[in-house]
């Protein structure tokens, strides 16, 4: 009786191992793997190909339009004489100001939420809302900026209003990426610091922040490269397309590259759309450069620190 049972079981096991062998030999899984590999490759190439065609087209239309004059001329009603001097200087201003405003606030908020905030219902409400803020359409920020900064505080249609608005826009992203960067610092490092008599502040300032700095900066740059391309909120707060002078203080009115592009594209003459294409090349160069820096920082960071 017992013998019979065990023989049955042996037979079952044998059948199973035969089946397992068959499956592992079967071509189906290999093919499945191959198919997915090529499908993935195809999708990747498709995305890049579209981008390349687009860039190629841009350069053919407008490559020759970019010269020293184009970068240093003031805007003009005549397409051939018009340049993007005020636009790229405005973009630079906005970049610097937005960084100055958003970076300290974003890092401080991120550090607070990650390191100091006690876990309770209020804090999870706060967290969910910050995540939500990152998804609010940018034009809503524009309206907020118009009401709050331009009118209520009275900074008008100035660079300052623009920078404050964009800072608000990218704050959620900076806060979230700061927290992500802080999370990568292992608890053992904090523990080691506390065990030496360091206070919480000393631990965060001397150990946690430096160890997560390149992560924070990567997030910051990616957020900024999004801000550089933003048009809608700046149009709402009244950034002008035709500014015949370069801003010299934060209270001056201004324009930025995307608005200049938008303005040129909306004109009927063909010469202006060539101008727009040329300005797009400049704008893209700026964002690609910023993304390049972010990739470089991330790469260096990963090489330097292996926990």
């Amino acid at each position, binding site marked *: 009786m017992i013998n019979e049972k065990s023989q049955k079981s042996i037979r079952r096991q044998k059948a199973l191992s035969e089946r397992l062998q068959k499956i592992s030999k079967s071509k189906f899984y290999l093919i499945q793997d191959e198919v997915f590999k090529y499908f993935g490759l195809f999708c990747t190439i498709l995305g890049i190909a579209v981008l390349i065609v687009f860039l190629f087209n841009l350069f053919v239309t407008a490559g020759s339009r970019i010269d020293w004059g184009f970068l240093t001329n003031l805007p003009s009603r005549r397409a051939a004489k018009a340049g993007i001097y005020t636009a790229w200087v405005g973009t630079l201003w906005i970049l610097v100001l937005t960084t100055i405003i958003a970076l300290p606030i974003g890092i401080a908020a991120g550090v607070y939420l990650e390191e100091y905030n006690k876990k309770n219902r209020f804090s999870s409400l706060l967290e969910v809302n910050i995540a939500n803020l990152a998804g609010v359409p940018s034009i809503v920020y524009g309206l907020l900026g118009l009401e709050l900064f331009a009118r209520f505080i009275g900074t008008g249609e100035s660079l300052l209003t623009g920078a404050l608005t964009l800072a608000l826009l990218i704050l959620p992203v900076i806060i979230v990426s700061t927290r992500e960067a802080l999370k990568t610092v292992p608890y053992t490092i904090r523990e*080691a610091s506390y065990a*030496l008599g360091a206070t919480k502040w000393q631990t965060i300032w001397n150990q946690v922040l430096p160890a997560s700095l390149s992560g924070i900066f990567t997030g910051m740059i990616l957020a900024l490269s999004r801000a550089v391309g933003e048009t809608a909120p700046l149009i709402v707060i009244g950034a002008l397309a035709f500014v015949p002078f370069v801003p010299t203080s934060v209270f001056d009115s201004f324009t930025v590259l995307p608005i200049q592009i938008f303005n040129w594209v909306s004109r009927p003459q063909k010469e202006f759309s060539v101008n727009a294409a040329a300005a797009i090349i400049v704008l893209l160069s700026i964002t690609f450069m910023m993304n390049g820096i972010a990739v470089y920082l991330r790469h260096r960071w990963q090489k330097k620190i292996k926990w």
Partner: protein
Amino acid sequence: MKIEAKNVKFFYGQDQVLKDISMSIKKNTVTALIGPSGCGKSTFLRLFNRMNDLIEGARLEGEILIDGVDIYNKNINVNELRKTIGMVFQKPNPFPKTIYENVAYGLKVNGVSDKNIIEESVEQSLKQAALWEEVKDKLKKSAFALSGGQQQRLCIARALAVKPSILLMDEPASALDPISSIKIEELIYQLKSSYTILIVTHNMQQASRTSDKTAFFYMGELVEFDDTRTLFTNPKKERTQNYITGRFG
């Protein structure tokens, strides 16, 4: 007595993990804490530099005295306390900074800014930790470039730099190869003359080689605490006997 624990009970939330432990430790001795995993050795060790304070919902009953002072007294400054009690962790955890900065960090956060003093202490601490000869030419190199055993000795040097009187070591050699592990043991033997050392270990040989006294913990209770020689050759409790001969745990 350098260290005294009086009727210590410890809770993580509702879970009581230490059950009425009393224990006295003499100055300049090495005490080994042994026992099966999860019996509360680390928890007990971390009471002495109040590292358990960082855990939410943790609660202590009873008293812990160091040099006769209740360290859980309201007037005690935790950061000051931790400065006088060095800690070495199971996994080497150097800061992602240079070797020099690792050792100097404790001094800097405690307000020492005189460069000469810092330089002197760094050298002295590294010598005490038997690491100086190996790193003296690469003090400005990243601590991550050191081997695991060297990193652990660096962590010891880092703890020594702030001139503690007590050294807490939580399985300091368990992540190391046998040779590095022996080096740490030799080091403990040398440090004994100037420090009171508590060491958690799962290695019976290590406990018997390095310590003067051994405490055997089981499920949150201090089962037996005696001279190491006595405990290993002639344990009074059957549980201890079973554990050290490897019959359970």
